């Protein structure tokens, strides 16, 4: 016990990492479910339905399937690289998430902030550093498979990632100019107040609405994560499955998870940079907003209860009862005055992130895929100039007499 008190940093960090890993893994799993559901409904289907109520156990089943499938390694492949590539991808993706603050640093245990694994002074830079390495996973996988389509996929993705990383970074620099810091917590703190203080529309001394920057960021981000409409590296119609054609079983799962982890990361980043992170959209004076999480959960539980008794039959009814219980209990906990301030930040943060994820899925469900040359020319000839222009305009306004930081 005194070991904990002696080495708070170590212990708390380890705990945080463990928890984060668990949470993120679960999130990834259910993100797949979420995506399939949403896309299905966009395409007016039901999506996963039978494995568990509303297919809620589908991710579990998938995970088991991946685990028990045969792990094939092409004989001509470059074993070492072939093996490390997926690990690299997933590890980097998770590392990035470790930098994200999910809640206010004020919430502390043993003098250590709870909601952020590592609060680096130049967190943003490090985030970029880590994400910039994400290319290797794809590229190496494509190369080491020693087969046509993967190689092409790898080439495409590395080219694409390099190209769009530039715009991604530049579009963010606008926010950095406004914020004047690289630390996430400070960036978020500056946006405190209400939603009109968020960087995306914030327009007061030393700030300029980053709406353009946000659009550029989202576009580049989708490209960075190789998502439709920029999923050239794994365009199944052209390259079978792109860089991970040769991968099977859990290695494939790793790439899969890495992709979704990256989605989450960029969504979190968007949330932090443009949408005030874990801040609530309402002025602090509106105290009733503290009840929102609990109330929301309770309402969800009540809907589940109604659904359980009206529609569910057999085992499904049992499972869904469990879900109902969880929701109601969670809601009750969240309504406790002690918990309310703690839960607030994560609540808003999660909400925003989920919104972004929905946006992701939405685009996937609606937009067709680019052609490769279109992709490149779009990235270099449109996105880059626009984000540069945004940067220039912002910096120009920064030094204007009235609007400027010293105005």
């Amino acid at each position: 016990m005194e070991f904990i008190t002696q080495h708070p940093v170590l212990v708390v960090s380890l705990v945080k990492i463990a928890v984060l890993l668990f949470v993120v893994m679960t999130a990834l799993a259910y993100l797949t479910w979420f995506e399939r559901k949403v896309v299905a409904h966009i395409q007016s289907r039901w999506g996963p339905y039978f494995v568990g109520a509303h297919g809620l156990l589908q991710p579990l089943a998938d995970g088991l399937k991946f685990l028990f499938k045969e792990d094939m390694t092409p004989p001509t492949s470059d074993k070492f690289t072939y093996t490390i590539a997926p690990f690299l991808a997933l590890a980097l993706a998770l590392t990035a998430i470790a930098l994200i603050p999910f809640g206010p640093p004020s919430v502390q245990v043993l003098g250590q902030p709870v909601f952020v694994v590592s609060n680096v002074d130049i967190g943003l830079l490090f985030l970029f550093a880590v994400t910039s390495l994400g290319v290797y996973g794809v590229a190496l996988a494509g190369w080491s498979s020693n087969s046509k389509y993967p190689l092409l996929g790898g080439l495409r993705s590395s080219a694409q990632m390099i190209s769009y990383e530039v715009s991604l970074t530049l579009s963010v620099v606008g926010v950095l100019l406004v914020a004047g810091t690289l630390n996430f917590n400070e960036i978020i703190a500056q946006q405190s107040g209400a939603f009109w203080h968020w960087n995306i529309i914030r327009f007061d001394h030393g700030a300029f609405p980053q709406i353009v920057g946000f659009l550029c960021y989202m576009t580049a981000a989708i490209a960075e994560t190789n998502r439709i409409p920029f999923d050239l590296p794994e365009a199944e119609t052209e390259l079978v499955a792109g860089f991970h054609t040769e991968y099977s079983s859990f290695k494939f799962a790793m790439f899969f998870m890495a992709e979704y982890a990256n989605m989450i990361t960029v969504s979190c980043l968007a949330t932090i940079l443009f949408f005030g992170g874990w801040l609530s959209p309402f002025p602090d004076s509106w105290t009733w907003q503290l009840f929102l999480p609990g109330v929301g959960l309770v309402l969800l539980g009540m809907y589940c209860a109604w659904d359980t008794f009206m529609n569910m039959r057999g085992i499904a009814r049992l499972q869904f009862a469990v879900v109902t219980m969880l929701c109601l209990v969670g809601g009750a906990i969240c309504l406790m005055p002690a918990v309310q301030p703690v839960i607030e930040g994560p609540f808003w943060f999660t909400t925003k992130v989920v919104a972004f994820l929905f946006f992701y899925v939405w685009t996937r469900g609606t937009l067709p895929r680019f052609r490769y040359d279109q992709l490149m020319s779009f990235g270099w000839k449109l996105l880059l100039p626009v984000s540069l222009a945004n940067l220039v305009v912002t910096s120009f306004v920064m030094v204007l007499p009235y609007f400027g930081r010293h105005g």
Partner: protein
Amino acid sequence: MSVPFILFFLCALLAVAGAVLLIMVREPIHSALSLILVMMTLAVLYLLLGAEFIAAVQIIVYAGAIMVLFVFVIMLLNAGTEERTDWSRIAKPMGLPLAFFLLLVTARWLSRSAIGATVANGVGAPSNEGVSTRALSMALFQQYLFPFEATSILILIALLGALILARKDE
């Protein structure tokens, strides 16, 4: 042995190992990977030296851009394993000893250099907190503004050069 020492020796070991691998391995991709490893460890060392910004830049630019470019080119050219030609009659018998000699000379010299010695003796030991990124950027954009602009022009020229070189001649 304190944490920095352990960290340092770990990184140094990794770095040297990576460098040796870079030489030993015959697959260009593997060389690239080992070089990336070296860069990573160097980034950590920079952190250890309190140069966070440089560390980040090291990773972003070197590992994240330049080496990606290398890998990309290797994949593009589908570079196979290096062939064991030894047509240069002096490279092996002379070059390697010379290089190692150079290594020794510089290492010896640097280890003997006044600055290293002073720090080793704890004299003039640097403050432990790292260099603030703000100060660095100030220096970059005020004291070194002209070189900065010059490098930007250099980059532009390099960009054009690369474009013209790699252009498909139609």
